[in-house]
């Protein structure tokens, strides 16, 4: 966008987060706008509908007190950009990228459009580097790899953010590879923010992190910009500077609500539960900004967190997310009630990139068979639990009874790990020990080769990579 800045005095009207501007001759779609009223700090916005007769500006700050007749509007001639750079590490910004840590604005290495162009699929490399998170339910059963987008589906009051904090804490740079964390808080409470940041500081992760914080009390519409500003920085660190970047975004549910607010203000035809029909594409423009480039160092891995309204996984927010991301880690209220931490329900959880991140030379040669076997018995145990709820354990056939006992132990000992951080070796060993409580004839998924190797004590040594 090369046009120079143009000024307009007075707007046609304002409604909710939208400002309407008349006779905008050379306005561009996506153009960044500054709105001033004498004596007040400026509002910022962007053009979401560019028209010769009338243009619509989405205002990112609260529009309360904005008098359309009195404003002076500057169409800046450029689209929304963010300052990006290595020097941003250790700093904190708001959702628009302005400092909130009392330090001056950074000069940075460059400015990047926050919208981010799509990665050309032929330039992507297939992700396949195992990330050890230290969480058994993830490392063992739903393995995360670099360049993946793996959301946490939490529920109201469930420890989604805690789990994310744990994963970030567990992160250390292996093989001296440069790595960084970008954290985006979207509409989260100051209590949640503080708790998260405190753990961050304790683990010493702060100086290799960049924080973008939009709290509950901050402007809603800014939430639409925050993840994009953060991803512009993440892409810079990853693809210009060759770092491995883990992006934690919490909470996407607030983002989607902001999106709905705009759609409502524009009187668009609402889709499911009032969310706009284009929410899939919109979310994709965030989630798809994860990946690895062929022949280049660096990666962007995303760990978005969202709250399933009413624990409903078919709600459009988790549903559309699941359709875009490469799996999901689903938290269970039942496990949480029973004091299991992290309360991950491994059945609906999934990592689609697991297959390329495990196996000989990465985790262990027998990893796939091992996890298939754990899944098979655990599934049978869960079915047996339903049956037992009606007929009692005594009504179960022997194999069902054994599977049920296994499921109980699996949840407590394998999934439940409390504060401990486990290496992949430890995770595999705990799984094996649980499997060994069953007779061989119950282990239909284990081939004789793998079983014999286990009996012979041939433990394979995992190659560990951290995020």
């Amino acid at each position, binding site marked *: *966008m090369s046009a120079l800045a143009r000024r307009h005095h007075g707007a046609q009207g304002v409604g909710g987060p939208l400002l309407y501007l008349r006779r905008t001759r050379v*306005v*561009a*779609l*996506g153009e960044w706008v500054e709105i001033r009223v004498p004596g007040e700090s400026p509002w910022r916005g962007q053009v*979401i*509908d*560019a*028209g*010769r*007769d009338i243009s619509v500006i989405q205002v990112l700050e609260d529009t309360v007190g904005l008098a359309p007749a009195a404003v002076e509007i500057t169409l800046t001639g450029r689209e929304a950009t963010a300052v990006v750079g290595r020097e941003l590490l250790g700093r904190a910004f708001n959702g628009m990228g302005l400092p909130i840590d009392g330090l001056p604005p950074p000069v940075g290495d460059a400015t990047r459009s926050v919208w981010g*162009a*799509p*990665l*050309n*699929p*032929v*330039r*992507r490399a*297939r*992700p396949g580097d195992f990330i050890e998170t230290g969480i058994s339910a993830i490392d063992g059963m739903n393995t995360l790899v670099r360049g993946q987008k793996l959301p946490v589906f939490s529920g109201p009051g469930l420890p989604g953010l805690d789990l994310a904090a744990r994963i970030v804490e567990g992160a250390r740079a292996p093989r001296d590879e440069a790595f960084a964390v970008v954290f985006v808080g979207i509409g989260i409470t100051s209590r949640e923010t503080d708790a998260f940041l405190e753990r961050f500081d304790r683990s010493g992760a702060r100086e290799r992190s960049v924080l973008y914080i939009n709290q509950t009390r901050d402007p809603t519409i800014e939430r639409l910009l925050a993840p994009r500003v953060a991803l512009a920085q993440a892409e810079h660190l990853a*693809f210009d500077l060759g770092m491995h970047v883990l992006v934690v975004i919490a909470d996407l549910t607030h983002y989607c609500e902001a999106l709905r607010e705009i759609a409502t203000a524009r009187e668009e035809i609402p889709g*499911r539960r009032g969310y706009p*029909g*284009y929410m*899939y*594409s919109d979310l*994709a423009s965030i989630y*798809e900004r994860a*990946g690895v480039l062929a022949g*280049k160092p660096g990666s962007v891995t995303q760990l978005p967190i969202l709250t399933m309204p009413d624990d409903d996984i*078919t*709600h*459009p927010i988790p*549903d559309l997310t*699941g*359709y*875009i991301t*490469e799996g999901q880690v689903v938290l269970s209220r039942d496990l949480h009630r029973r004091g299991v931490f992290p309360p991950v329900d491994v*059945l*609906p959880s999934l990592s*689609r*990139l697991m297959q390329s991140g495990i196996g000989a030379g990465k985790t262990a040669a027998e990893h796939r068979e091992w996890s*298939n076997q754990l*899944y098979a018995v655990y*599934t049978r145990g869960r079915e*047996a639990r339903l*049956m037992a709820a009606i*007929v009692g354990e*005594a*009504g*179960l*056939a*022997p194999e*069902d009874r054994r599977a049920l006992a296994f499921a109980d132990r699996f949840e407590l000992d394998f999934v439940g790990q409390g504060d401990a951080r486990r290496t992949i070796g430890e995770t595999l060993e705990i799984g094996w020990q649980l499997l060994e409580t069953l007779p*061989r004839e119950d282990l*239909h*998924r284990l*081939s*004789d080769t793998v079983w014999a190797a286990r009996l012979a004590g041939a433990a394979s040594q995992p190659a560990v990579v951290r995020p």
Partner: protein
Amino acid sequence: MSTARLVRISGALAEAEPLADAALYELVRVGERGLLGEVVRISGDRGTVQIFEETTGLRVGERLAATGNALTVELGPGLLGSVLDGIGRPLQRVADATGDFIAPGTSAPTLDAGRRWAFTPVIASGAPVRGGDVLGTVTERPGFVHRVMVPPRVTGQVAAIAAGEYTVWQPFGRLEDGTGLTLAQSWPVRQPRPVASHLALHQPLVTGQRVFDLLFPVAEGGSVAVPGGFGTGKTVIEQSLAKYAAADIIVYVGCGERGNEMAEVLEEFPRLVDQRTGRSVMDRTVLLVNTSNMPVAAREASVYVGVTIAEYYRDMGYRVALMADSLSRWAEALREIGARLQEMPGEEGYPTYLGNRLGKFYERAGHVRACGAPERDGALTVISAISPPGGDFSEPVTQASLRVVGALWALDPELAHQRQFPAVDWETSYSLYADATAPWFSERAGGDWLQLRRAMLELLQRDRELREIATLVGSEALQDGDRLLLEVARVVRDTVLGQSAYDPNDALSSIEKTWLLATLCRELLAAGQRALDGGTAFDQLDLAVPRRLLADLRRAADSELAAGAAAVRAALAGVAR
């Protein structure tokens, strides 16, 4: 020249004035960067254009130029192995121009204009020709003959034709009326290519997936809908078919899905060998990619570009399979554009013409006699994934598809959570092609395929009933015969229906292997029943050994089948311990 200028830009749409003399669906170049777009509405002197590229930064007042053509795709040698975006631009050439990230406004023709191909004519000058006639051949890939055809609707007499090396647009001959004959032709993607006639469907497209070949087969020229919630395995199925199905050509349309999945395909396909031809799978594949973060209007176009390419190879007389993943994203693109056009929405906000468009798309599948000489038959099979919101099949895209397709492969999240893959719900799924294709399978398998199919479905049905009873009375309370059936049904689910896409020996199941595994499961049931009849109690049966051997057999190479089957049968003799 047009003096049209943009007066409004909103999302993927732009309005321009004056645009009264443009035609509906005419292709236009928009703005200084020359973004590609298509006229979707004309009202008075204002035209509305959907733009196939990112519109951010487009300004009111920029110019717009009509091209006089509809959206077409170049068809000719060089398509195989290529990776195209939604409107047919090779992504490799886009990358050469704009780097790792896609920037709008890149021009990149579908076919490499500079590459030369050795052309061998099959007719001589003086011959009268009409649309579809084969003029000669080019070896497009080692062992693959590309038939160069007279474009549809063209007739005349060949005035000159010569063997030699030609680029795709360089004439190798001409007709009496001066029309140049070239290796490539263009075709408007929204129009089906003509065929001489439609033929009956009787030959299966062998998928290499046991659950489909045995229970829910698809005929060559047929169409299948594969609906399923997220993570139920649609993409794995589409990719497995692309890798292993017995088709000559695969057109794979990644419509609004993930970039990393495409990276996976691009890494795997070139390395994978098509067992029937000994050549790389990539050599028979054309990929169309519009990931979920690429422009929506191009997503809408991508399935048409894909199906047009598929029809082109069908017209040469090949058996083509088109995978569309996912048609829901296409429908959503339609909805998004419809909404911005302020059209009256139908069900769930989709435009009222959704069913109509969807039907027309599926209708491009078929087993056909191609136009022109020599006589040749081709087939185009369409297998499309559908992503129903919340996994609920009552939504419009699934329902509209079910009105036209011949088979439904319904995927069930519950099965997927249990890691029962492919997560095909055998109660809901169906195939209208089962009877017509059975003779072919039976002949290959050397046994009654339909009967085996029926036996499997009955067993699964009985299993479902018994499991419901078991949840009420407990598995311990069931009769021994019923417990045996439940156990054998587990084996069937594990070894016949279950098939791992990640195990090199299991990912593709030959007809032989499918037949054998299912037959052995029936023998297991019979052996168990004999033992029970002979007075052995269920708890005394040794089912674990044959079960494990069957699992090994599932993972065995075809060369090991006979030995493995012998081992299972030996173990069956010992079921009574």
